[in-house]
């Protein structure tokens, strides 16, 4: 493929990638997305060399005057959009950007247009970064980098040959330049892809090294919290049913030591309710207390001492990534003991529900260590349990007029000797005799519980759980309703549970004086047809990639950075100690110097480190500036398409550009020697340099003997000196 063709194609692809970023982010309305997609496809086809499209497009190429007026029109649309429709700078700006991009794509003619296109593409990719944090951005961004590197290299290449051709006579290509082959050769392909890989690597390095700033100016505002139900002051029966079909992800729960838990399900407790009035559940009014801090960022939810003596429990540690929800409740396996995360404060209510002071405005990552209480053997067999007064007062409340339920409960537990057996009997009765169904017509019912138990006999988790709590309470066993999520979707690739809206659940906690509140679930397992098809597992794989993306990039915070730095410092401390020990064994004086150095290093303050880093960066920049020409020379020498003749040609072309910037232009019909004489007269300081470069150029360009490395570097040096000169 020739450079020109490849250049056009990669330029359009660059724009297409940037635009598709915005399309994926769903930040384009349909009226804009459709024509954009059409124009992009046409442009790619045209640049790709489809002659039919090329001819058609050639006909609708817009004249400069029209394109200017179109751009003005786009600006007017932008203003209207900003004031009346979007009412926000970011979406309106994105629409404006895409309009401009389309206009540019239709009027690509001069190199200037291409430069504008690149600037617009850059802004588009930045804008799509501002509106999204999703994982699809990764391939888009990588594609963008790829296309950008190709485009810029090809731009440079075509400009070099283009300017040389401009100096030659376009009408007579026979006297054109010999800047090596003007096609993409295999070495060029690999070199460019190597540059792409290097760019990606450097981007990653910069991403991890550059200090984080808190919030980007253009970051998405947290307007769209996920609506949840079942976590408010009052829960009507049937509220959870409304979300049971919603596959939106609510959170992801990683279990660092997963062996402790059975992997098929995990209860994530939200809030507990103790008061039932026949139609809805509510909290009895209790004070929320703020949790104490045990260390920075770690809150103590329940001191271990508060556990009843002799109780047994299972420790579960969870790392939870909570999506933005409209509730301030924190979810965790029952019952949380330590909560750590970047919150200012965490509050707990009397029934061990965890709250933030306000619903979080962004995704939240926190870890919880929970102690899941286990029923101890004595209470499993005890015929009677001694409940504390406070518990009986709160957790035996039932609404009036429940005789039928009372009778049913007593009938169900006939033959059960112990409270635990009674509990199991109630649970078993509900599991066996009722059908799980999401058909929701309960809203009009005055007595939803009776309806469930005696007439419909179908319902879902809330009905089951409410029935169990009420039945247990009529039997004198303290119980309460809990809402939260039942995680069942285990992602084996990422090692975490995916929790979705439809996993919202309600279950029962039954009180045993010495074991504590034991989780019981009367709802039959929904036979989630978990046909482990390949697609599903692929989907889980993709989901786990998304989580990694999220953890590694989106929520990569200054704290994580500090942790990395800290780890590195510890590592380097270790290495330094080892080294100093090794050196000490070798020689005394040098060891002393080294220990002084390491002492200095230990005294290093963060501010000092910043200063040193800054100095280092500045020094590196200066160094790079100084060796710029060397690098350029190296690049020109080692470019596969440029033999030494091409190298001196490029250096000469660079000299001509430099001189042109100083106002000395070489007319095409003037020979190199004549031009050198002209420069000598017009700008004496540059005369000798230009004469020297011209000599080397003529020798390298027209003789049979290629220039030596020394001569080439001499020429590069002279060009560098020339670039540093300023004409008076």
């Amino acid at each position: 493929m020739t450079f020109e063709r490849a250049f056009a194609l990669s330029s359009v692809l660059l724009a297409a990638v940037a635009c598709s970023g915005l399309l994926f982010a769903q930040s384009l309305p349909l009226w804009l997305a459709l024509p954009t997609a059409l124009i992009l496809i046409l442009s790619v086809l045209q640049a790709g060399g489809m002659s039919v499209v090329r001819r058609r497009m050639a006909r609708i190429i817009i004249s400069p005057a029209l394109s200017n007026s179109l751009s003005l029109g786009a600006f007017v649309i932008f203003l209207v959009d900003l004031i009346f429709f979007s009412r926000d700078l970011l979406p309106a700006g994105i629409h404006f950007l895409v309009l401009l991009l389309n206009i540019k794509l239709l009027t690509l003619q001069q190199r200037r247009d291409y430069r504008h296109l690149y600037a617009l593409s850059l802004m588009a990719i930045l804008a799509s970064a501002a509106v999204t944090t999703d994982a699809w951005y990764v391939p888009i961004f990588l594609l963008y980098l790829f296309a950008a590197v190709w485009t810029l290299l090809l731009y440079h290449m075509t400009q070099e040959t283009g300017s040389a051709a401009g100096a030659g006579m376009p009408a007579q290509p026979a006297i054109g330049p010999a800047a090596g082959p003007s096609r993409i050769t295999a070495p060029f392909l690999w070199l460019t892809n190597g540059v792409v890989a290097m760019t990606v690597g450097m981007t990653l390095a910069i991403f991890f090294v550059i200090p984080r700033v808190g919030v980007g100016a253009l970051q998405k505002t947290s307007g769209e919290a996920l609506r949840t139900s079942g976590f408010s002051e009052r829960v009507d029966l049937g509220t959870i049913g409304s979300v049971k079909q919603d596959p939106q992800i609510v959170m992801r729960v990683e279990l660092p030591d997963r062996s402790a838990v059975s992997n098929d399900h995990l209860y994530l407790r939200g809030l507990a309710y103790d008061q039932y009035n026949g139609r809805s559940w509510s909290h009895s009014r209790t004070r929320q207390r703020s949790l104490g801090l045990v260390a920075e960022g770690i809150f103590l939810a329940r001191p271990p001492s508060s556990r009843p003596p002799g109780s047994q429990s299972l420790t579960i540690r969870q790392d939870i990534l909570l999506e933005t929800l409209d509730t301030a409740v924190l979810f965790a396996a029952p019952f949380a003991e330590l909560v750590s995360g970047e919150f200012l404060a965490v509050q707990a209510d009397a029934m061990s529900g965890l709250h933030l002071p306000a619903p979080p405005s962004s995704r939240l990552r926190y870890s919880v260590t929970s102690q899941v209480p286990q029923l101890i053997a004595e209470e499993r067999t005890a015929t009677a349990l001694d409940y504390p007064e406070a518990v009986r007062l709160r957790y035996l409340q039932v609404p009036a007029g429940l005789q039928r339920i009372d009778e049913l409960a007593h009938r169900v537990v006939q033959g059960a000797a112990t409270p635990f057996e009674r509990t199991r009997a109630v649970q078993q009765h509900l599991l066996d005799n009722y059908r799980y169904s999401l058909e929701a017509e309960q809203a009009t019912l005055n007595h939803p519980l009776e309806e469930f138990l005696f007439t419909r006999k179908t319902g879902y988790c809330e009905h089951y759980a409410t029935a169990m709590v009420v039945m247990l309470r009529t039997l004198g066993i303290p119980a309460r309703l809990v809402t939260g999520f039942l995680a069942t979707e285990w992602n084996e690739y990422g090692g975490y549970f995916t929790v979705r809206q439809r996993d919202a659940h309600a279950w029962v906690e039954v009180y045993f004086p010495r074991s504590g509140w034991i989780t019981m679930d009367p709802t039959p397992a929904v036979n989630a047809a978990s046909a482990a098809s390949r697609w599903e597992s692929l989907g889980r794989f993709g989901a786990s990639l998304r989580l990694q993306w999220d953890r590694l990039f989106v929520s990569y915070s200054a704290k994580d950075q500090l942790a990395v730095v800290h780890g590195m410092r510890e590592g380097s401390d270790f290495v330094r100690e080892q080294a100093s020990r090794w050196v000490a064994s070798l020689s005394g004086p040098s060891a002393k110097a080294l220990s002084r150095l390491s002492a200095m290093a230990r005294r290093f303050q963060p501010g000092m480190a910043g200063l040193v880093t800054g100095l280092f960066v500045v020094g590196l920049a200066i160094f790079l500036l100084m060796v710029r020409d060397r690098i350029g020379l190296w690049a020109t020498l080692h470019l596969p398409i440029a033999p030494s003749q091409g190298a001196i040609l490029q250096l000469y072309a660079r000299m001509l550009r430099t001189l042109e910037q100083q106002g000395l232009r070489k007319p095409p019909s003037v020979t190199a020697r004549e031009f050198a004489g002209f420069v000598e007269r017009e700008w004496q300081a540059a005369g000798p340099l230009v004469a020297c470069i011209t000599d080397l150029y003529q020798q390298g360009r027209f003789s049979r003997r290629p220039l030596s490395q020394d001569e080439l570097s001499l020429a590069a040096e002279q060009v560098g000196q020339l670039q540093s000169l300023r004409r008076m």
Partner: protein
Amino acid sequence: MSSTQTIRAIQDNIALVIKGKSHVIEMAVVCLLARGHLLLEDVPGVGKTTLGHSLARSLDCSFKRIQFTSDLLPSDIVGVSMFNRQKQGFEFIPGPIFANIVLADEINRTTPKTQSSLLEAMSEAQISVDNQTHPLEQPFMVIATQNPAEYHGTFPLPESQLDRFLMRLRIGYPTIEEERKVLDRPHSLHPAESLRAVLSAQDVVALQATVDQVHMEEHVTDYLLAIVQATRQSELLSLGVSTRGALALSKSAKALAVVRGRDYCLPDDIKELAPIVLSHRVMLNRTHGMRTQSFDQAERLVLDIVETVPVPV
């Protein structure tokens, strides 16, 4: 002595006589190395003959001078076949053309018939008389001088013959200072007579051989061809440069490269030589108000045309 020094030595030698005309001298040497013939055209008395004479004197080879007059006959140049009584047969008596350097003085003062007798000698380096061919010695160079065409009593050279001269040079008046130096010289002797030869005939042939080794890069050739093409397409010229003209430009460019101490040609060489190598090979278009074929006009036109051709970078 390296070739560069040798060439330098010739130029210095001639410069002892011709004051302040280093460019003209250099071009004369280029002409010699390119195996070409030189036409010196200028007003009388600016040193045309002296230049030719000095060049011949600087080389250790045979030198003949032919003063062209209106009654000169071809046989006066190439020689005649005469009956030798002792041998009972015709014998060829070589004319003055049989020399390494032939100075044809005031060539346009003679008749076209005589002028054309030079033709074969100049292009083929041989003479045919009475069905017999006599090769000429190498090196062979004709240095012709002529007065400008506008002058009285001249027979302008036919195009075919002009084309056989590698280059046409003008000497021009010297500056005051240079003229003073000329006047300060002792008058007793013709200045060229005092020169000693610095180069043998073999040396010259060897130097001419090095010219063939000079490298002309593809794009320099393209540039040359573009110039030739431009003269053919120009509206100002009724006759452009012939292929022989292109060859002449190429040869002289290579020779100039050798004179300047290079083994490769530059576009500069072509551009510098184009007016003097091409201007006598073109015919001006008379519809453009140029009734006479003046040297100045032709040279200026060629220069203008060269300026329209972009130089390869």
